């Protein structure tokens, strides 16, 4: 499970992810209502190798768009992004796409729809191995079993169909799939948000162990500050496409500077907490 041997040598000291002045806008609506929405505005941050950065924000904050750009699913309008030493967008063509999937992988929010419901879950992993390694069928099966073991699944889960597994087990399969190409960076898009709290804790702990063992770099997208607190070394808070606050997890959550971060912290239910009304946000009306 070593990722170091696949990484380019110069990358060991450079940050795994560098995002510099990245922007993206979409055109929404049609006719007279046509307008441009800035989903991400000049975002910049770096993720040192082997650490976890949490991007925290509410819906519409641009955190998902940011991740999609890093994965090459969306083209940035401005700025540059480097993942594992290679600029995003440079890697086009089939060989390069394959190479790209060794730089960065993704785990989705809903493990149910992230797996083909008609195929045994092991196929999700073995087909990735088939695309990226020279292993024969037996070697792939062995490697797949190893990966399943690494994410805490048993051998009898290999042949299960997705619906025969629990939500937590399905998410473990998705994590095994993301690890199969031995990527340097893993994007976790609300990866524990659809899970029950007891399962959430287990998955977070698993992710933490895998990160330490394999020297992985995480970009963890979440709306939940408490989840960010569990996993992140550093935190970026986004609001309406802009990064309003960034820093170490201790600083951002311990001594928040921006009023919005404080607002987020105050809104999270906890013992002794009371909900409170605030002036109506004019932008929330109509759409």
């Amino acid at each position: 499970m070593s990722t170091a041997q696949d990484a380019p040598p110069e990358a060991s000291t450079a940050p795994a992810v560098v995002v510099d002045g990245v922007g993206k806008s979409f055109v929404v609506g049609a006719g007279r209502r046509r307008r441009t929405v800035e989903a991400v505005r000049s975002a910049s941050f770096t993720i040192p190798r082997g650490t976890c950065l949490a991007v925290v924000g509410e819906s519409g904050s641009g955190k998902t768009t940011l991740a999609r750009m890093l994965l090459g699913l969306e083209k940035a309008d401005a700025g540059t992004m480097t993942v594992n030493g290679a600029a995003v967008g440079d890697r086009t063509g089939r060989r390069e796409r394959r190479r790209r999937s060794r730089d960065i992988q993704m785990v989705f929010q809903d493990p149910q729809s992230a797996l083909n419901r008609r195929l045994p879950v092991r196929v999700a992993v073995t087909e990735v191995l088939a695309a990226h390694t020279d292993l024969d069928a037996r070697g792939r099966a062995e490697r797949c079993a190893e990966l399943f073991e690494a994410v805490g699944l048993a051998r009898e889960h290999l042949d299960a169909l997705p619906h025969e597994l629990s939500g937590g087990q399905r998410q473990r399969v998705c994590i095994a799939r993301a690890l199969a190409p031995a990527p340097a960076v893993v994007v976790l898009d609300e990866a524990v948000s659809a899970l029950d709290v007891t399962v959430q804790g287990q998955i977070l702990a698993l992710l933490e162990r895998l990160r330490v063992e394999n020297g992985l770099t995480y970009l963890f997208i979440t709306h939940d500050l408490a989840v960010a607190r569990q996993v992140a070394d550093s935190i970026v808070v986004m609001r309406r496409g802009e990064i309003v606050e960034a820093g170490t997890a201790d600083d951002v959550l311990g001594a928040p500077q921006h009023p919005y971060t404080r607002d987020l912290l105050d809104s999270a239910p906890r013992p002794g907490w009371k909900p409170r009304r605030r002036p109506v946000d004019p932008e929330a009306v109509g759409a």
Partner: protein
Amino acid sequence: MSAGEAVVAAPRGRRPGRRPGRRPGSRPGTLSIVCLVWLAVVVVWAVLGPLVSGFAATEGNIVDRYLPAGGAHWLGTDQAGRDLFTRLAVGARSSILGALVVAALTAVCGATLALVAVWFGGWVDGAVSRVLDFLFAFPNLLLALLAAAVFGGGMTTAVLALAIGYTPYTARVIRSVALRERALPYVRAAELQGIAGPVITVRHLLPNVRQQVATGAAINFGYAMIDLAALSYLGFGVQAPDADWGLMVASGQSSMLAGHPQECLYAGVCIVLTVAALGYLGERVGGRRAAGRA
């Protein structure tokens, strides 16, 4: 019973999280069994009929014309003294085989077009959709008649023309299902993992539209039988003296006017029962909507 289970117990809609064909507590209804029995009878009749009757389909003795049912000729004879039981059996062959080829061709072409359109999207999807819309504008029979006029009548022309005419129905349904499937994260995940497009299409998309392909084929089979019979009736499909149900309805018309309705009647009843049975079973399995015919 086991054959009935396989057809009828398949899940009706797309049911995520269920193995297809394994729905507990669902029994085939009485009507489904009647339909299956009739179809089985037709198949056995088509295969064995000419062997057990002892008559040839295209040879008759003019002396024996218009014999009633019973005696050596179990279902009587037509105006040329040919054995109706044997002719119906041979007619079943061309009806079933022709319709089967139409259904199979339609399924293959429809699925291929739909999956190619969905995978590449963009202008490819646009182009495929426009071509399908264009084909939609032609009534199937008109298309087949046109083909017969240009390329000459006969079974091959009729089958190919119908297959082309049916393809848009199947392709449209499969395209919509595949589009929904394409948008699911697992397809995106496979893409991100650097797996090639054709592999994803065949391994992931195809199995998830299999049910729609199968249902569409079953329903198209019924429609193809009617349309082929109609083409033969009009003289553009199977040519006399070969036997075909549609052709028998046509050639029996003059006999009916002469007071001998049996040829017309038997062939007509065979067409109606077989198409009705196929339609009912197809609907039990997937519904007309699944075939794009609703």
